[in-house]
């Protein structure tokens, strides 16, 4: 289930856009997908570069304390890579007519590709992605309307529940999620190579033993052994695939709120450490107690970094 991986939900959807006819906005007559692009291009990004920091208009996704990344892409048409490559000699021998066109695929309408990585409410992902999208609607209904308004089915959206009803059917499986929060290797048990070998080898062995004991002839034993070995390999395959379907283990303390608190503490502690240089242990100890009281390291709701910014700004105070 790669949608849920490493404790995070990786949502992918392709939402068809109804691009028929002309729409009008502020005197501009255009195709619907033109307005979808404009809505996306004017959607503010997070305040994480000098330019956006100067602009100062925060991304609406920063209102959510569960969103790690959100990306939108308009898919107009699949890219046509040209004719399939083939061996010129083979084509000549098989009589391929190079003048007859090969088919190239086309979409019947543009699609909006939506990719959002967010924290599920529960680690097992139950209730997702519905709960996330219902919450998102309450945080940014106007922006979501501007982006999705020309998508098929959007006219039925009235509230949080109907927004989730609208987007969930467009979900496709995320086959390659990316986890960035593991520091060091996660605790993954390796499959036993010995066990993988033993299953098919065991089948072969049993059949050969049966032949040796005279239950089967040697020919029958060898045939049955080979069959059992193939069955063993199939069991290995299913076992490996079942293991592969298991989500990557969740990294503890990797929700957005944990990450924001971690970033805040890292910056606060660096400043604290620099300020303490050259001070005696008693003074330092007292200052550290004040630091702990002020920063409340275990309290995710306590002083923390705001979502959607590149750094926390600290007033210059003596610790």
């Amino acid at each position, binding site marked *: 289930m790669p949608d849920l991986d490493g404790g995070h939900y990786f949502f992918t959807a392709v939402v068809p856009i109804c691009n028929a006819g002309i729409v009008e906005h502020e005197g501009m007559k255009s195709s619907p997908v033109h307005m979808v692009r404009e809505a996306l291009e004017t959607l503010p990004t997070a305040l994480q570069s*000098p*330019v956006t920091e100067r602009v100062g208009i925060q991304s609406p996704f920063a209102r959510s304390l569960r969103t790690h990344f959100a990306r939108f892409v308009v898919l107009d048409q699949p890219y046509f890579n040209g004719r399939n490559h083939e061996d010129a000699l083979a084509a000549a021998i098989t009589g391929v007519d190079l003048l007859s066109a090969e088919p190239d695929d086309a979409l019947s309408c543009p699609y909006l590709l939506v990719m959002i990585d967010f924290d599920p409410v529960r680690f097992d992902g139950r209730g997702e992605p519905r709960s996330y999208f219902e919450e998102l609607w309450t945080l940014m209904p106007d922006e979501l309307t501007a982006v999705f308004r020309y998508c098929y089915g959007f006219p039925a959206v009235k509230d949080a529940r109907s927004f989730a009803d609208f987007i969930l059917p467009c979900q496709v499986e995320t086959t390659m999620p990316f986890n960035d929060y593991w520091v060091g290797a996660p605790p993954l048990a390796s499959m036993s190579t010995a066990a993988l070998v033993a299953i098919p080898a065991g089948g072969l062995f049993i059949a050969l033993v049966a032949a040796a004991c005279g239950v089967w002839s040697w020919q029958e034993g060898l045939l049955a052994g080979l069959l059992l070995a193939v069955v063993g390999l199939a069991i290995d395959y299913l076992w490996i695939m079942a293991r592969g379907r298991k989500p990557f283990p969740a990294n503890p303390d990797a929700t957005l709120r944990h990450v924001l608190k971690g970033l805040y503490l890292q910056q606060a502690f*660096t*400043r604290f*450490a*620099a300020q303490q*240089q*050259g001070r005696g242990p008693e003074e330092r100890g007292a200052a550290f107690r004040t630091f702990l009281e002020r920063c409340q390291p275990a309290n995710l709701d306590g002083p923390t970094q705001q979502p959607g910014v*590149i*750094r926390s*700004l600290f007033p210059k105070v003596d610790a």
Partner: protein
Amino acid sequence: MTVELDLADIQGGILRAYGRQGFPKARYFFLTIRDGAKARALVETLRPKITTAARWKNPDRGEPLLRTRNPRVKDVVRAEGVPDYPGEVQLLKPKVAINIAFTFYGLAALEVPTRTLRAMPDEFIDGMEQRAAILGDDPFLDRRDAIWRNSRGESRVHVMVSMNAEMLPDGTPVPELEEETQKLRDLCAQSEGGVILLAGNGPDNAEYQEMSAILREDEGALWPTNKEHFDLSDGFGDPVFEGQLSGEAERLRVVGGGKILPDQSWAPLATGEFLLGHPDEAQEIPGAAMPIEFSRNGTFMAYRKLHENVGSFDSYIRRQGELYARMFSVPGHEAEETVKAKMVGRWSDGVPLMAAPTYQDWQAFNAQLAEAHAEQDKPKLAKIALEFTDFRYRGDPAGATCPVTSHLRRANPRDMLDPHFASPDPKSWDGSALVNRRRILRRGLPYGRYDRAAPGDRGEHGIIFLAICSSLFRQFEFVQQQWMQYGLDFNAGSDTCPVIGNHPPEHDAKLVIATEPANGKRPFICNDVPQLVEPRGGDYFFIPSMTALRMIGMGIIDPT
């Protein structure tokens, strides 16, 4: 296969730094073109005077290994009676080395065909001003010299003519420099408005950027040094690439200068990293403007005028030195020198931290050096010369000896970015593969002077930094943006280079001087680092080969 370069086709100053070849004085001129034909005529007149990389004889060169305070690796080869430079000697060393380079708009003004121009790289077309946000120059654009602030329209810098000159014992340039200057003025005047020599360098709007090595007085004469205005010795590490040196010189200089192979041996970098039209580290001839003879043996150069805030540097080192001395109970001088060395990666005289990790090691290193000098012990001096560049970082993963964010380690991380850097299995090691495509040839000289008794930030003093490479985007800009103005590749977050990085006050710029995690000694954090270096302007230039220069001057580039 040994690469044999067509040395007489390559402009001088690329393979070797002029400053280290006995040209401690320089004037750089910037021209704008108003008439293509007249400008081509000027190029044609200048062309025979252009200094190339062809080998010359220098009758005044000093005794190898003894002629400089710090022994140099190239002298190790000379001391053995082997030439340190490829090719045959057919020339005498000139008094003034003259070279020429063009901005993209300069090539357009010279009427280079569109088909050739359009294959020029984006960053070269943009020019340095357009790349300000990438380089971190944007906060300083208003403080640039007038020539760079006004470099647009009728005053766009199109051509750079550089003159690197020998020096007289009184510290002034040889008179030939002024003679050549006057000839260039006359050439521009004769072009009847076709080519204008632009003023606007420095606070007095000079008609050229003057440069000079920092001089020291000895035996009644002035001698050039390798110091810059922070009083740090510079210019030790420079990439070594195929064809640049004679065989024996390459064998020695490749150690510390070349690339590290997976088996941890050193090899010269591919020629194509520094000269167009040659195979590069990706094992291909990189795309370049056509026809290929227009690009081949040419290269790109970033010219950057970098002001040095010597007042801020001195007072910051003093403040941090006091705190360091108090924390670690060491004398003030030792503390200040240590803080400086940890920022740079070398002690102030250039001895690398990797060769002399502590102040005491440094003193011992220098005592050995002094002894070898006194005894004129050439084998010992040769051994010491190699220590200035022969090191790797595998033994120092935490940066306890040389901080991972020091200027030196950022500029060339050597083996540190090996994905298997920490692996105990030598078979998995990858050497410097991730660094080989990010190397630059550093050239340039200091400019200006300041009152040593009262160092201040105002005034005209700094360094003209020249970065030469075949892709400014992949090499120079990457190093500047990712390694100097950012720290993520070194697991140091947004920390910028403590020396040349941007340090806006609201970012609390810092340098962490780490210690071995096991030894119990506390780390030291240099925080609130002030802005020490500020760009004062510059641009991106194409240095054509002599073949390309002839094609430009004659107007015969045929890109079909």
